[in-house]
């Protein structure tokens, strides 16, 4: 178990370094003079403003230093939690802007991921070996998985929001309300939360159901299932064992899917103008706020790594093989 977790930690550590390095490197690969470009993008006419902006960017990027020193400075600033200042929401620090948005993203992602995982797995397990369900669930599952995240979000927003008017379609809470601890505000928050959550939940559902269906069919063909059947064990018991075994690859799959689901959450938020990280990314792109963009994305990378680590620990808990040092989890 220690070897397993140590290997994982090494991979995550390395991934973090690579991600930070990419984050540092890509802006420097930008063709032309990045400072000039950013000043030009700001579209200001004042020569004085241009001069001070140029100087500001030069200084904040530390572009006058040798490359290796720029790189080290970047890391140092990172560990101080200093991700720069947002240009769009000047003078708010990027880390503060991002931290304000994180709860919204987590608020739709975590319930959507967990619920779709549980429900999808149960549906898939039921569909396996039941011809009628299989014929319905499988094609539907494939079509749902093939849906672009934002399209389902658009459909829900249009159907339930605009056409039926059941739910609000934009924002994290009513624009007329001030965030506070009260029932009416909580209710409003919940109303705005329903559609983004539902959208993310539905798209993820199909994949888990299909995966589980295929795995259960495979497990039911295995030796232990046949042996149990030969002993005369009830079908329900055999399926229970199959289900538990089939869950292991699904958990691995969950870790691998995190990045994709996160991308999905980002575009879903954009459709609903939900004030999470996705909207931040969009605003940062539209306002050419590159500090904010990089800061947000760095947060996302850290989030994915932490979530991966949590899933690894869950894996150790559910798969005894990883505990005894046998080949269990995939490195």
């Amino acid at each position, binding site marked *: 178990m220690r070897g397993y977790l140590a290997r994982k930690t090494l*991979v*995550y550590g*390395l*991934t973090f370094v*690579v*991600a930070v390095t*990419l984050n540092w490197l*890509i*802006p420097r*690969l*930008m063709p032309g003079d990045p400072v000039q470009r950013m000043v030009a993008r700001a579209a200001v006419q004042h020569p004085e403003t241009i001069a001070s902006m140029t100087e500001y960017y030069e200084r904040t990027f530390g572009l006058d230093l040798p490359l290796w020193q720029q790189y080290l400075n970047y890391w140092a600033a990172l560990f101080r939690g200093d991700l720069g200042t947002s240009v769009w929401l000047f003078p708010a620090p990027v880390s503060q802007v991002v931290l304000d948005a994180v709860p919204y993203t987590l608020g739709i992602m975590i319930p959507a991921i967990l619920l779709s995982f549980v429900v999808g797995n149960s549906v898939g397990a039921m569909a396996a070996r039941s011809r009628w369900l299989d014929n319905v669930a*499988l094609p539907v599952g*494939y*079509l749902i*998985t*093939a*849906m*672009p*995240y*934002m*399209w389902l979000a*658009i459909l829900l*927003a*249009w159907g339930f*929001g*605009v056409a039926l008017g059941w739910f609000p*379609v934009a924002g994290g809470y009513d624009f007329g309300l001030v965030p506070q601890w009260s029932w009416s505000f909580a209710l409003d928050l919940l109303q705005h939360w329903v559609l983004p959550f539902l959208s993310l939940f539905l798209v993820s559902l199909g994949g*888990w159901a*299909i*995966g589980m269906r*295929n*795995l259960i069919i*495979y497990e039911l063909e295995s030796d232990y299932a046949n042996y149990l059947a030969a002993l005369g064990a009830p079908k329900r018991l055999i399926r229970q064992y199959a289900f538990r075994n089939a869950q292991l*690859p*699904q*958990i*691995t*799959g969950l*870790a*691998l*899917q*995190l*990045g994709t689901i*996160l*991308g999905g959450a*980002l*575009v879903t938020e954009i*459709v609903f103008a939900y004030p999470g990280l996705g909207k931040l*990314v*969009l605003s940062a*792109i*539209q306002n050419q706020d*590159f500090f904010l963009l*990089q800061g947000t*994305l760095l947060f996302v*990378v850290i989030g*994915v790594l932490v979530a*991966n680590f949590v899933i690894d620990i869950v894996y150790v808990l559910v798969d005894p093989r990883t505990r005894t040092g046998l*080949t269990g989890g995939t*490195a």
Partner: protein
Amino acid sequence: MRKENGMTATQPITGPVTEASEQPGATGSPSGGRKPGGDARETLYFALRNPKVIIGMVVVLGFLLLGLLGPAFLRYAPMDYAGPPMAPPSADFPFGTTTFGQDVFAQFVAGLRSTFLVGLLGGGVSAVIGMTIGFVAGYRGGLIDELLNMLTNVVLVIPGFVVLIIINAYLGVRSVPMQALYIGVFSWPWVARAVRAQTLSLRSRDFIDLARLSGVGVGTILRREVAPNMYSYLFMTFVLLFGGSILTAASLDFIGLGPTNAMSLGLMMNQAVQWSALHLGLWWWFIPPGLGITLIVGSLYIMNVGLDEVFNPKLREM
């Protein structure tokens, strides 16, 4: 047997395949040592009798034809201000018009082209990278395997979509092929893992030993002995990568990081939302692009299930 099942399980979730094939011992014999040409006719015979393959193929090819031939029959370019604004579908404008009076059908047809191009190039790039790394890591073993495996794991954990956002935002990817290239560079890891696992199990076979004894180079062995035994798997992998690239590109386009010199289905949705087609009830503007993507990618997935049955006689009997 195990691997093919895992393959089906992978469609959207890359998990099971890696898990399933991480245990080389359990990986079933990939169709023995037959040469690829020998059973091509048999494969075709079963493929043409599999409803899933047929349906999937018809839908995908139908959209492909529409994308290829459609522009020749259109009267308007995608961005032309062709007719009255916000017109619902009619004989003149089968998919209606946008708030600016652009022909939605013309945009859709042009978007199909980008969609297929992104799928083909993005899927192609990631297939080539993934297979090369998988083959080399699995066949060479030792330190090279360790290093490549580490690389694979790192790229696997990095949220590729996020890196794509940064790349596109900074480097200004403004053409469909460049976008496809970047997508390909970040979506190969699960392919490399699966191919590596299978190569590992093939490596110890007699016919590989024989090839090695006769002094053939590594590249030739991989190309002539290892790869042919995995053709069916590799083809199915490519189909999945094709669909995945399309979805990723649609998300990027939707954020506004798509090509600026071409129309795409993701861009259509971006514009529809931006110009509040939802609130104006212009359903003909935002439904076709998403439906197109869903049908193309869904058909690819369903076709893949069918192909699985074609390539794997065990599943065929069921």
